[in-house]
């Protein structure tokens, strides 16, 4: 019989204790794997979902609110700026593309985003592409003749069940200005999937106050400079101006990542404690098993088993438990991350990591090593078992 065979036989001999140890290791490893994958998925989701535009111009206030509202639709819209700011930026020689954005209301939680065709245009520098799943883009209508045509993001269409030709509104004051669905976008895996787009004239036409304003309101303007090197001066000018603030969306996201890093540090500490608890559990389990088996071990020694063989059996048992728990934990962790990613995926803010990666063998190796180490003290105890002392009559 080999050491492995004996070790596995011992484990099978106490199935409940072995299964519980494997489950506890698997739960601990699952928790760690799932936490790491989800934290990474959230960060990558933010990176993937960010805008291709380099500057967001809006009213004075919180830069984070501006970016979270305009780019990620996760916050309330900032106060309005005047449409003339967009016009001025359009004519600025440093600006290649300026896209106006109007925000405010929502239909069943899906934010209304008023803009123009430039928002969906393909540029050589753009990563994100917009394609229609059905219908067409909304009409570029005149200010005097709003068409109230709506283009739905993929998730907005799926969740609301709205189809091409459907008319909808939310709130009785909007009943006079229902929107008509003319198109549905393919998924972009970003917050745009959860938006309802329509033209600026429709946006102004729906609101009684905006209808009466000589200079129409906007929420923000997205900017792409001709030269990146003009970005700092544009940023500074728009911030020093009394009416506007300019925000680098990547700067805001990096600030959010810095804040997330603090939470990740806390999570890391909690996971480390979980790891220690699991290792202690393995240690206690192996220690109890060794104490219970002292007579058996003494018998083995009396029958000629070497001390090193006894040591090897206990360490192999620990390694086998850790291997089974580690494998179960990695599979479980990926499964949890996959399902959580699927649940959160429609928000456009979590990238799902369902596939196994190159780090998994390293995780498994670490679990086996630590699990084996947890069995070291019981193994040494078994190694030092005295034959005469433990084969003495029980009573």
């Amino acid at each position, binding site marked *: 019989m080999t050491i492995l065979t004996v070790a596995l036989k011992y484990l099978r001999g106490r199935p409940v204790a072995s299964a519980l140890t494997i489950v506890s290791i698997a739960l601990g490893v699952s928790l760690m794997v799932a936490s790491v994958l989800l934290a990474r998925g959230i960060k990558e989701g*933010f*990176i993937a979902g*960010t805008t291709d535009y*380099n500057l967001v111009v809006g009213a004075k206030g919180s830069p984070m609110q501006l970016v979270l509202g305009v780019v990620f639709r996760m916050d309330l819209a900032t106060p309005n700026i005047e449409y003339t700011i967009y016009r001025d930026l359009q004519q600025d020689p440093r600006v290649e593309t300026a896209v106006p954005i109007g925000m405010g209301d929502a239909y069943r939680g899906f934010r209304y985003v008023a803009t123009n065709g430039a928002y969906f245009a393909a540029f*050589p*520098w753009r990563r994100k592409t917009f394609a229609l799943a059905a219908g067409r883009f909304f009409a570029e209508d005149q200010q005097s003749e709003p068409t109230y045509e709506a283009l739905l993001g993929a998730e907005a269409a799926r969740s609301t069940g709205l189809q091409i030709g459907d008319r909808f509104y939310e709130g009785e004051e909007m009943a006079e200005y229902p929107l008509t669905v003319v198109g549905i976008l393919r998924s972009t895996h970003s917050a745009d999937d959860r938006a309802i787009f329509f033209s600026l004239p429709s946006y102004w036409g729906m609101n009684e106050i905006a209808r009466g304003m000589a200079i129409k309101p906007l929420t923000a303007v997205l900017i792409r*400079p*001709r*030269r*990146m*090197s*003009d*970005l*700092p*001066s544009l*940023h*500074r*000018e728009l*911030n*020093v101006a009394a009416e506007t603030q300019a925000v*680098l*969306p*990547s*700067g805001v*996201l*990096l*600030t959010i*990542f*810095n804040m997330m*890093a603090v939470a990740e540090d806390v999570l890391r500490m909690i996971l480390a404690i979980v790891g220690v608890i699991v290792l202690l559990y393995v240690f206690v389990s192996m220690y109890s098993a060794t104490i219970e088996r002292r007579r058996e071990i003494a018998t083995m020694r009396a029958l000629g088993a070497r001390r090193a063989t006894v040591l090897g059996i206990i360490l192999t048992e620990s390694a086998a438990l850790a291997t089974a728990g580690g494998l179960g934990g990695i599979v479980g962790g990926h499964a949890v991350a996959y399902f959580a990613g699927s649940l959160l995926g429609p928000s456009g803010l979590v990238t799902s990591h369902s596939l196994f990666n190159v780090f998994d063998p390293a995780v498994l190796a670490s679990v086996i090593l630590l699990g084996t180490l947890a069995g070291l003290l019981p193994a040494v105890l078994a190694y030092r078992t005295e034959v005469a002392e433990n084969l003495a009559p029980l009573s």
Partner: protein
Amino acid sequence: MAGSEEIPRLTFAQLVDSIRADSGVTETIKSYSGKEVAIQGFIVPAGPPDLSFFLLSRVSALGNYCCEAPVGQDETVYVFAAKEVNITYDPLRIFKIVGVFEAGMRADATYGPSLFRVRNARVEEALGAKVFKTGDFPASASKP
């Protein structure tokens, strides 16, 4: 591998002084092209938030109420990071980048035209750093 101390440091002052009237650059600064250099400045996150691309600026572009704004290509360097940048971003902190320097006008399909670029860049905090202004030169500035 050579230590960071052996890598020549370029300053924004040197970059500004190297620009000729026709928007070309001097042979001295061109001689650094293709070589690894170190430059210190403030990060302007002009590209994606993974900082695979960003601008390095002589002045902090995001501190709105003091100092001057960087005025254009001569005071910004386009930085293309070698791998994932793992720093705690702070718009008011000076960072040191080390990478392969390129001088001369060139247009990038994604990020447009630039005069100075650093590719395969590594980024680290520049402890005790000083960003030299036009006319100043570090006493220990290395020559090519």
